[in-house]
């Protein structure tokens, strides 16, 4: 069976449109990253410090009533999120005047008093001191930088310069796109999200390498063809495997997203986005950049 037969799509010709789209995505991603650095985005408590408690009630709890109850006990600034399927409530409190270690107790007491008839169990409780959050932020930044440098060094060693730059830009593009989506949807930026980002940074090269290998092969075979045509031909030749490899990873990630439960829901979501973006970028970002560069080089020589 074949998903798509022989194609002849002018991918490189679409680079004007794709570059505009990718630039917008990257700028949003960059903006989101800066906002996160300033703490203006929805940062998880593992980075910002604070308390998160997940409670499971026996009867449904109105989110407004819960907010009222917390406000009564001095936790006005708590953010609430209900997990619909099962009377669960996730309460997050950032830095407060209360001492670390007291917030979780205060939350529990508040619900015990205000919802006396509705029993609950504490499913999870996380308290992170501000110093831990600061350290984690620094470590994470180091981790991202080291991984990118590692990948760049490897690509530089495997490919020549122009391909290396193309692959690196595509990888950074994918990372920025994941940040952009999470920033726009106001989803929580936590350690698991960063894990997903780094995983995709490593994974996104698979598709790019497949395309690049073919371009190199064809460049050696077809010396007379124009760059534009060689690039297009190569992408079209490997298009079905680019799609199939992404599809299998996508199937796995989507089953995590749909059936993996609330703890890794956002993590799986980040993977799904990342796999989709990585496929797009190998065709529409990495190759057009290299082709543009190669064509310029030829024109300059002529």
């Amino acid at each position, binding site marked *: 069976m074949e998903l798509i037969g022989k194609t002849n799509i002018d991918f490189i010709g679409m680079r004007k449109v794709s570059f505009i789209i990718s630039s917008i995505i990257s700028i949003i991603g960059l903006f989101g990253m800066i906002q996160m650095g300033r703490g203006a985005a929805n940062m998880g408590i593992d980075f910002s410090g604070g308390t998160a408690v997940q409670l499971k009630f026996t009867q449904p709890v109105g989110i407004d009533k819960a907010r009222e109850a917390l406000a009564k006990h001095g936790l006005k600034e708590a953010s609430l999120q209900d997990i619909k399927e099962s009377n669960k409530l996730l309460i997050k409190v950032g830095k407060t005047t209360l001492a670390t*270690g007291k917030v979780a107790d205060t939350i529990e007491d508040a619900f015990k008093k205000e919802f006396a008839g509705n029993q609950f169990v504490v499913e999870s409780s996380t308290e992170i001191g501000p110093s831990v959050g600061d350290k984690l932020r620094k470590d994470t930044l180091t981790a991202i930088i080291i991984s990118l440098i590692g990948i760049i060094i490897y690509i530089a060693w495997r490919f020549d310069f122009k391909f290396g730059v193309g692959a690196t830009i595509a990888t950074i593009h994918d990372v920025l796109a994941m940040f952009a989506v999470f920033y726009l949807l106001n989803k929580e930026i936590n350690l698991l999200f960063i894990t997903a980002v780094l995983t995709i940074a490593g994974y996104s090269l698979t598709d790019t390498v497949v395309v690049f290998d073919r371009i190199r092969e064809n460049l050696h075979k077809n010396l007379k063809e124009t760059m534009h045509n060689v690039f297009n031909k190569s992408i079209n030749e490997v298009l079905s495997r680019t799609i199939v490899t992404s599809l*299998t990873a996508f199937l796995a990630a989507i089953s995590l997203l749909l059936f993996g439960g609330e703890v*890794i829901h956002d993590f799986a979501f980040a993977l799904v986005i990342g796999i989709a973006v990585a496929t797009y970028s190998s065709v529409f970002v990495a190759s057009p950049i290299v082709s543009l560069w190669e064509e310029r080089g030829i024109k300059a020589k002529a």
Partner: protein
Amino acid sequence: MSKGINWRFLLIVAFLLLSVVYITPTLVSKMPSWWTGILPKEKIHLGLDLQGGSHLIMEVDTPKAVEGALDLIATDLEDSLAAQTLRFKRIAREGGDKVKMTLYDKATAETVQAIIKKKYPEMDLLPQFEEGGFTVIQLKMNEKVASDRKDKSVSQALETIRNRIDQFGVSEPIIAREGLTNIVVQLPGIKDPKRAIELIGKTARLEFKLVDENVNAALATPGSIPEDDELLMEKRTDQTTGAVTETPLVVKKKAIITGDLLTDAQVRIDSQFNQPYVSIEFNSTGARLFDQITAANVGKRFAVVLDSTIYSAPVIRERISGGSAQISGSFTDKDAADLSIVLRAGSLPAPVKIIQNVTVGPSLGQDSIRKGLMAGAIGVLLVVIFMAVYYKVCGLVANYGMVLNILFLMGALAALGATLTLPGIAAIVLLVGISVDSNVLIFERIREELRLGKPPIAAVDAGYDKAFLTIMDSHVTTLITAAVLFQFGTGPVKGFAVSLSLGIIINLFSSLVATKVVFDFALSRMNVKRLSI
């Protein structure tokens, strides 16, 4: 290229057997006795996010340990000067690194300097000076001694915490030092995390102090009491209502006996009131001191102080010899049990602060395992169906490679005694998708070669050869990020990195060697003429 087919099959079967042997202890709860003798018992451990439990990071307040050491030096100098009948106005700790001695005259100062040099050669003696008609000598603890002291306080705190946790009874706790001042404690499957945290975090400094009856405690403020006194609260909890009442008491700052002199502490029940109390035993020094002090202070009250809170303040009715005493208060059974544990395990050299507490209840962990497995099963099913439909029989070969990949990975995780976390499960599910990618690349190459008119054997060989570099590239870059995640990640993330990187490495074998041998066997031994791809 049909050589070595038997050997390769043998290798695969050997790995398969090994994996099954290693996975079995994880799957079977009770192993038969013949197994445990020679075969591996190591299980895949479940992370705290899956089995429930607490992950704590505690920061030891190390400057307090230095202050404590300086306080001890000050007290010791007071005693030695008193013993040699040298008069002094005041000896006390000054700031975080000095002991200040205020003396009446220079002559005494010289003698004192000689004593200090002999007793504390490691301390720096600052130049003496005059202040308001008194001679002042300052002793400074230098950086190196202070940092030694801090370092020791953290390792001491770690030992004490380990002791307390052992006595509290937690199976397979992990207690480790992290960085200069932090201690990481993992308590898997703990039922009552709050109680455990309270027990671990308590400084548990036990002191017996004489009550200063000359001061009216009800009117006293911290500023109005004599310099060598302090104002503490006696806490009592009403057993029936749970209300806490606090009564102020003024006691001597200097402790007459401390918890260091204890040898044992046990919970006992008062037969008269059916109330639990903690009975303590002193060592010989403690017993002698206790005997002397009770004899000298009959009729007065002494306060039993734990971490600056008074538990009880009984009147000394008679001289107490024999070296045992009791701490009673308004305890519940659990309070008394916990108090006896901390007293037996000893006090922490400095207070600790909990800077991170991640606690997962057992129900959420169960839920996560169930859903993770569910997602995995569905992921496998989707991928298997897709591959079979898209690549027909060859797709089945890829699926067999994927199943081997997962089995080998589980075996490796068990053999290494690795910890499986929820993100670790996610990594395995993701791996199901990535695992067949290598075969997709190979199969697409084979299809191309077949289209060029090559016979199946040549097409398969060319497919494997040409796809190899591409596969290596994607594996290496994924490994780079997994290694970084392993280095920087904690707990759950580390579990993800371990599962992912092991899986990727194993994938090289399962997707290249294990599937190739099937093709070689079919094409050369069974004379298959057409590939179903």
